[in-house]
């Protein structure tokens, strides 16, 4: 306790002896370098999207995002996310439950395998589905005979997107549930709660913020995936074009304002993702501070 109190106090201390911390010059130089770097690398591209999008005025912007091809790309993107995100959410919860609540052999291997899609180039993620379902692929001829279209159609796009966003929810949940341990669930089980009851009433309330963040991240990536979808989509305008692909097509056709207008929709998505992330982090820090407070009181 003594240590906790004093260290808390010295954090608050505005005035630190000069030989312990950096001089103000060093401090402000470092802050300037960091801010300049972030402005140049991250902020500038963000701003440029909006400036380019509105360069030719509001009416061009509006026309670009209400263009039938853009609307159909938006619909396809939403549809894809609507299938891929729930699938990966269910998977993420199941995987996190198995990995964090039980011990079994090969657990570390399983975690590594779940992370695998992260370390694979998006182009390869698309390629593997071409190899499976393409005309020369394993199932190609069979699908052709039965007149089932997977590649260059919605199923292919959904598959590639699901593959790419596969680890997101699981990755958020595993460390969180690992830290929380199994005591609460075991207590609930000892009080007679059954399987789903334990999950809904004990586990879910504990992980809801982390889960939400995982879903949001998964969704952002699902809507924004470019490389993998580019390989399997076939770029058919109005049919198999997602929003990012539509940005590319417009850009390659030198319709820059239209391209950036569509891109700005995706930037909104990214900004919303970041806002939700900040809220989630803020919430979890409050919960954690509360828990630490309880522990301190218990001492």
């Amino acid at each position: 306790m003594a240590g906790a109190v004093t260290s808390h106090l010295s954090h608050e201390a505005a005035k630190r002896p000069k030989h312990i911390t950096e001089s103000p010059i060093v401090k402000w130089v470092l802050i300037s370098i960091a801010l300049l770097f972030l402005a140049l690398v991250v902020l500038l591209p963000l701003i440029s999207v909006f400036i380019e999008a509105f360069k030719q005025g509001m009416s061009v912007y509006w026309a670009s995002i209400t263009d039938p091809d853009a609307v159909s790309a938006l619909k396809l993107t939403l549809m894809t996310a609507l299938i891929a995100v729930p699938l990966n959410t269910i998977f993420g919860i199941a995987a996190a439950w198995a990995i964090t609540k039980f011990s079994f052999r090969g657990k570390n291997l399983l975690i590594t395998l779940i992370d695998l899609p992260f370390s694979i180039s998006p182009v390869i993620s698309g390629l593997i589905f071409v190899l499976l379902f393409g005309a020369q692929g394993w199932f190609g001829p069979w699908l052709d005979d039965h007149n089932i279209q997977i590649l260059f159609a919605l199923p292919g796009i959904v598959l590639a997107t699901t593959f790419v966003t596969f680890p997101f929810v699981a990755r958020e949940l595993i460390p969180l549930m690992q830290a929380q341990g199994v005591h609460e669930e075991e207590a609930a089980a000892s009080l007679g709660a059954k399987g789903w009851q334990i999950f809904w009433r004990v586990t879910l309330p504990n992980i809801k913020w982390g889960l939400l963040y995982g879903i949001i991240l998964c969704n952002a990536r699902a809507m924004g995936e470019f490389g993998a979808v580019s390989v399997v989509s076939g770029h058919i305008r109005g049919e198999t074009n997602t929003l990012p692909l539509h940005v590319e097509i417009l850009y390659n056709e030198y319709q820059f304002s239209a391209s950036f207008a569509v891109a700005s929709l995706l930037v909104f998505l990214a900004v919303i993702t970041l806002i939700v992330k900040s809220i989630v982090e803020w919430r979890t820090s409050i919960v954690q501070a509360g828990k630490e407070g309880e522990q301190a009181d218990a001492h």
Partner: protein
Amino acid sequence: MHIELKGVSKTYGSFKAVDNVSFAIERGKLIGLLGPSGGGKSTLLRILAGLETPDSGEIRINGKRVNDVAPQERGIGFVFQNYALFKHMSVYDNIAFGLTIRKASKAEIKSRVDELLELTGLRGFEKRYPHQLSGGQRQRVAFARALAPRPDLLLLDEPFAAIDAKVRKELRTWLKQLIATIGITSIFVTHDQDEAVEVADEMLIVQQGKLEQQGTPVEVYTQPKSAFVASFVGHSTIIDDPAGLHGFDQAAIPAGAKGIIRPDFVEAGRADEISLPSAAAKGTVKRVFFRGTHLELELTVRANRLIANRSLDQPPLQPGDEVSVLIHRIYVLAEQSAVMVENPLKLDPLPVHI
């Protein structure tokens, strides 16, 4: 004087962590800085080290004002509560760190580290890393590391707090002997009065940022200067109205003064067991605690609650038993003074009442 503080204060926002503290310490003394958690002990230690700057006041080491001397140059060794060992360095490199900073020669470093490894009983562990050591061993490394550059003053912040109760006692004795061998002036912070009493040559008692008392353990115990010191060091009960105690109505006790009674000031038992039955009052046993070597009785005498010790050899008492209670003496604490007052009935055993 070796170490001197004059009027040192430090506030964080509106919180007074250290409030106008002055004291002086002689060379070679082992000082226990004792007080409740959050009372400003650690801040005081950190101000001495130069890790915090005081808002006002003066710090002198060997007569020289060091307020503006960098902590790196003060010649102070510091042992942190969590040891703060360098995780990526071996025991040897940890101990050698201060010497390499001072650009000592390789041979010099080796001989000094060897000497400290020997002294701290860490020989054979020099290639290990902190995570491969027990808590007690880590503490020894922290100690050796702080001593390596031959500091003039050693500061230890709760040096035993993170160690198991069992090992703690051994380490205390070890540390006291070691510091005596080296003869270095040392100040250690603790909130455990047993630890301070057992280890320290002299104690500084700090509460709410204020220095309450400085003195040897015996002085602090037998002549507490404030109600806080009396109640913090050793066992005692505080009496709001000491003049109301049997016999003390005849003593000159200033109005509003508080009385402090330690268990060994109180004799309680059947009337025939009391040395001076005529001076004793009637009381009731409330509770009886077994304390290993003796029994502790909680008594009520009129409205007052008292604690007394009772030998295991004497016949046992039960809660509810009527007993005679003789209060040999009390401390009387007025605003600025603390005096020991003997029970007047003991000095004048001819009771007027008979």
